[in-house]
């Protein structure tokens, strides 16, 4: 019965851990469903009037006149300038005699609409998918880089260690904000993948420092000397022997960084480097908040904050429980 199994049993005894794990699984399920298109597929469709309030708040009917305006009045006087498309347009206009159909829009929705009339609830669900994907992917990238660099720096020592420490000190010396802005500007604006790259490329430093310390500690442990004595190569010792024994540190850091990057994505969106307009994330919803809150349209910011708070809290508590389960020393 391996250490992982042992940890799993300890985890099962932790009520808070279980509860948070369930919430995390629910969020991941929502994200998967949204990715597969089963839910919030048409979050982008405009179903309500602009800023339609939530149903449980009395909608002010007079406010919004629904429906798209028909073709506006067009001037006939052409001041002597001939329009090359005049014949084709005349023909088309004749063909389309009927008035354009006006869509019917709801004046209030389950949890209200944003300025374009899109359902805030659906946006929150789709936002869950984007934010979790950004959080998980960038945390994975940062963890990969941090672990790789940390392993080589900690295990190899010598100039390798010096090089990575130099890289670490340079990356941590530059204010995080400037670093993110610069890389964001370099990578340009290509949506979710750029955001993941930005966060991943700047977020590895924390994990690097911890993994390097773990490798320094484990490198001199007897089981590694024993591995050397039976002829295991450096690479095997580094990744087959030591890595599993520091993996609990990496795992905990990974989930810590998921939370960190979900929150960073909000700041990135506020600065304009968030996800593209073809998708929505909690960050893009919160970025619209300042201009809406003043007008008294509180539902979008509330929806995004609650969704994010729930997910992030669950994830953080889950991380704590995992850490306690994997690292009993702290009992």
């Amino acid at each position: 019965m391996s250490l992982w199994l042992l940890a799993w049993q300890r985890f099962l005894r932790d009520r808070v851990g279980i509860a948070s794990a369930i919430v995390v699984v629910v969020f991941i399920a929502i994200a998967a469903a949204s990715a597969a298109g089963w839910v919030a597929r048409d979050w982008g469709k405009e179903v309500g009037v602009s800023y339609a309030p939530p149903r449980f708040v009395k909608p002010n009917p007079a406010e919004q006149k629904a429906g798209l305006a028909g073709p506006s009045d067009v001037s006939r006087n052409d001041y002597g300038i001939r329009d090359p498309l005049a014949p084709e347009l005349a023909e088309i206009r004749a063909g389309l005699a009927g008035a354009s159909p006006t869509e019917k829009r709801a004046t209030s929705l389950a949890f209200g609409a944003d300025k374009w009339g899109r359902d805030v609830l659906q946006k929150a669900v789709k936002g869950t998918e984007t934010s979790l994907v950004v959080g998980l992917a960038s945390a994975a990238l940062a963890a990969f880089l941090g672990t790789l660099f940390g392993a080589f720096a900690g295990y190899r020592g010598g100039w390798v260690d010096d090089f990575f420490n130099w890289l670490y000190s340079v990356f941590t010396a530059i204010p995080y904000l400037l670093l993110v802005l610069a890389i964001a500007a370099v990578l340009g604006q290509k949506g979710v993948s750029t955001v993941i790259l930005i966060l991943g490329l700047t977020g590895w430093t924390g994990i690097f420092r911890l993994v390097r310390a773990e490798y320094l500690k484990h490198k001199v442990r007897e089981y590694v000397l024993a591995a050397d004595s039976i002829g295991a190569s450096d690479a095997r010792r580094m990744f087959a022997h030591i890595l599993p024994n520091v993996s609990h540190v990496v795992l905990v850091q990974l989930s810590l960084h998921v939370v960190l990057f979900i929150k960073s994505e909000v700041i990135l969106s506020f600065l304009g480097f968030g996800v593209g307009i073809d998708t929505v994330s909690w960050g893009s919803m919160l970025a619209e908040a300042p201009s809406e809150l003043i007008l008294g349209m509180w539902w979008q910011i509330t929806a995004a904050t609650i969704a994010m708070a729930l997910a992030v809290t669950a994830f953080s508590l889950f991380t704590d429980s995992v850490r306690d389960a994997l690292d009993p020393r702290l009992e």
Partner: protein
Amino acid sequence: MMVSIRELRVGFGPVEAVKGVTFDIPEHATVALVGESGSGKSVSALSIMRLLPPNARAGGRVLYRGMDLLTASKKQMRNLRGSEISMVFQEPMSSLNPVFSVGFQVAEALREHRGLARRAARERTLELLQEVGLADPAAKLGRYPFQLSGGEQQRAMIAMAIACEPQLLIADEPTSALDVTVQKQILELLAELKRRRRMSMLFITHDLSLAGSIADEVVVMRAGEIREQGSAKQVFAAPRDDYTRMLLDLRPRLDRPRRPRKRRDDEILLEARGLRKRFDGVEAVKGASFRVLKGKTLGLVGESGSGKTTLGLLVARLHEASGGELRLQGEDAFRVPRLAFKRRLQVVFQNPYASLNPRFSIGQTLTEPMRIHGLGGGEAERRGLAIELLAKVGLTADALFKYPHEFSGGQRQRIAIARALTLRPDLLVCDEAVSALDVSIQAQLLNLLQDLQDEYAMSYLFISHDLAVVKYMADEVMVMKDGEIVEMAGADEIYAEPKHPYTRALLASIPR
């Protein structure tokens, strides 16, 4: 009667650490509480001081001059601790606050209980440090714990404990973390202090012979119960309980005859000339020359810091030698390709809890070397070889699917040995291979090693700080001090007439 403990029971969650213990500590007497790790001896001591961790449940009564300490108020206990009952712990280094000076920590007890002013407390502390035998106490006063040696730190701890003239001193394995020579001095100090200050003492140890040499009465504990109690003479002369008897005769006494050696041929397996190793400026091994004979055991004795482990690792090429020559059956050992060298020389490490990779199953640990060196056809065959080896070291086949944390220290060391045997090495370097185990287990493993040596005609380089164990195992013995081999001779000769003064001091410090 100073302290009488009636039906003391202590539990942590489901586990019952102490299951109804009853014994007394008479005035001005020294009672030794003896038992192996996990016997509940430390927990009993801590419950007298009521220093058990928050999740502990204590039952029964602990009477100190009529007052039940288990039900006394926090304030009463606070006044009692340090002034009437005080305690000395096993790890002096971690028991002193690293960021405060020794003087401050000793004076603190005085100022807390006796309300001495700063100047008076300082004077009294100087006298105490003098009394516990600390050289140049005025200088030591301002020093921090890490600036003192292990022995000095323990002396400071003792000074702190006796500062307020306690009636009862509890010493929880005060010497086991110290070197043998220093152990002797601390024991003499404790005995002297008890006599001069007319204190009672509760001495907790796992070493029965140590208990014998210091205690008036002995209480033997095992798994939370008292197996035997009585005066020291009576317990040593006619032990009633068979567990006590087993503990007594297991002690590898110096005069125990060694098992007859099967083979006599003195072919040389490994020869070292002028081996040297320097770690950033410090000369750890200064030119060691010795020979290991085929099928024979070369013992290497030395205290911690003598460089014996480094020498062992040098021989196994786990450390790069800074100089000197090593010949393996005539070939230059440093030239032999790495994998080939590894097949002929293996190492067994000291700490069973650290030398096995906790994340590998025993099956993986044993088959890995075979896979690396290409032994055995497929996985199944390698698994078969592994089961054979497990049997050799006295473990059943189902161990393959278990993980290190599911085994006791002794069993883990057996697995480590099995792993070393997978490559049928010519030489096995045993670095303190049994020192971390309980005395009862040590004996079994030493016998196992000797059986394996006879069966596989392997040579051993047996490294240990425990002279008795080395004498039991080795044909020839080397004594090392500060990186140099000070003496080398046959096992019996070296014990009969040790030439080097250091060897003599080592021999003298083993309790008879």
